[in-house]
């Protein structure tokens, strides 16, 4: 009907492709583009912090400053939310933050694959976080960990409602943690692709549509800037919520 309605498929960018096939004992363990980009994210982070740690000079150069600022940033985040004894989880939160941040940022490169826009990746990360919270919480506090579900100081009839609500809210944590990152990256990248597609199709549809194409292109540029913010913000939010949940495992009962 309208020639400019035919835009490129915005979902196509999320397709997982097998780079080479591998099947072990009936399980498909093929190396995909998702695996490749995850390894790339790990490689970038390892290269940056490997450089920062081996350079080790008193007056840092630019790249070393980036690493040191990143270290301080995560350390302050954990201190602020979970206190000094939260710092025993520093390696975990640090790894998590920089893996997600690197994956999000690599996803912003045109034609790159965004691993964090797949719910299986974010779901695995969220399950890891909540698994550590439960295992460490019970290991450290024993049965006291379950006081998390019954905050002190409420009159007893309230507990009949409060305990189920607290249990449901605890069970919703891994779900929302995974879905927040996944949905933000998915929706953002679909939006970028849609506006870029509109710009191309409108420009191709004739001279009359050129102002609309320019508008669409400008919108795409602005959204790109927004997506860089979202890429950082979602990594930050994932890490800070991990700290909040770890704080529950460290100090159940006072929240």
């Amino acid at each position: 009907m309208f020639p400019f309605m035919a835009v490129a498929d915005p979902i196509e960018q999320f397709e997982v492709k097998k780079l080479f096939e591998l099947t072990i004992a009936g399980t498909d363990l093929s190396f995909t583009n998702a695996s490749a980009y995850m390894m790339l994210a790990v490689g970038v982070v390892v290269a940056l912090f490997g450089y920062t740690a081996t350079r080790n000079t008193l007056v840092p150069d630019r790249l070393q400053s980036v690493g040191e600022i990143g270290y301080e940033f995560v350390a302050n985040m954990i201190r602020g939310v979970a206190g000094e004894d939260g710092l025993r989880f520093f390696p975990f939160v640090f790894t998590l933050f920089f893996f997600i941040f690197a994956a999000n940022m690599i996803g912003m490169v045109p034609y790159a694959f965004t691993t964090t826009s797949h719910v299986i990746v974010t779901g695995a990360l969220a399950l890891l976080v909540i698994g550590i919270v439960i295992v460490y919480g019970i290991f450290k506090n024993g049965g006291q960990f379950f006081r998390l579900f019954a905050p002190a100081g409420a009159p007893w009839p309230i507990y009949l409602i409060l305990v189920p609500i607290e249990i449901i809210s605890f069970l919703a944590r891994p779900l929302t943690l995974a879905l927040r990152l996944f949905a933000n990256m998915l929706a953002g990248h679909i939006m970028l692709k849609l506006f870029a597609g509109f710009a191309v199709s409108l420009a191709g549809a004739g001279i009359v549509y050129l102002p609309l194409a320019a508008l669409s292109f400008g919108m795409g540029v602005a959204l790109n800037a927004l997506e860089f913010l979202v890429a950082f913000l979602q990594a930050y939010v994932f890490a800070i919520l991990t700290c909040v949940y770890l704080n529950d495992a460290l100090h159940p009962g006072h929240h």
Partner: protein
Amino acid sequence: MEGDITLGLKYVGAGLATLGMIGAAIGVGNIFGSFLEAAMRNPSAAPQQTGNLFIGMALSEALGILAFLVSILILFVV
């Protein structure tokens, strides 16, 4: 014909499910609005509260994402 109506209603349902995002929008707007209001009154206390700001944002945003999820479930699973 009947299949068309079912399919159409499915899309209507998916669209209606996204209305849940209104709540998340109000919530997120409220959080940032209140933060700015408080930060203008006492700017020196604002930097320590940015962590709480983003926790609050993330928690209320999650409900909007649940609305998105319901809409995706209606479209692709049901």
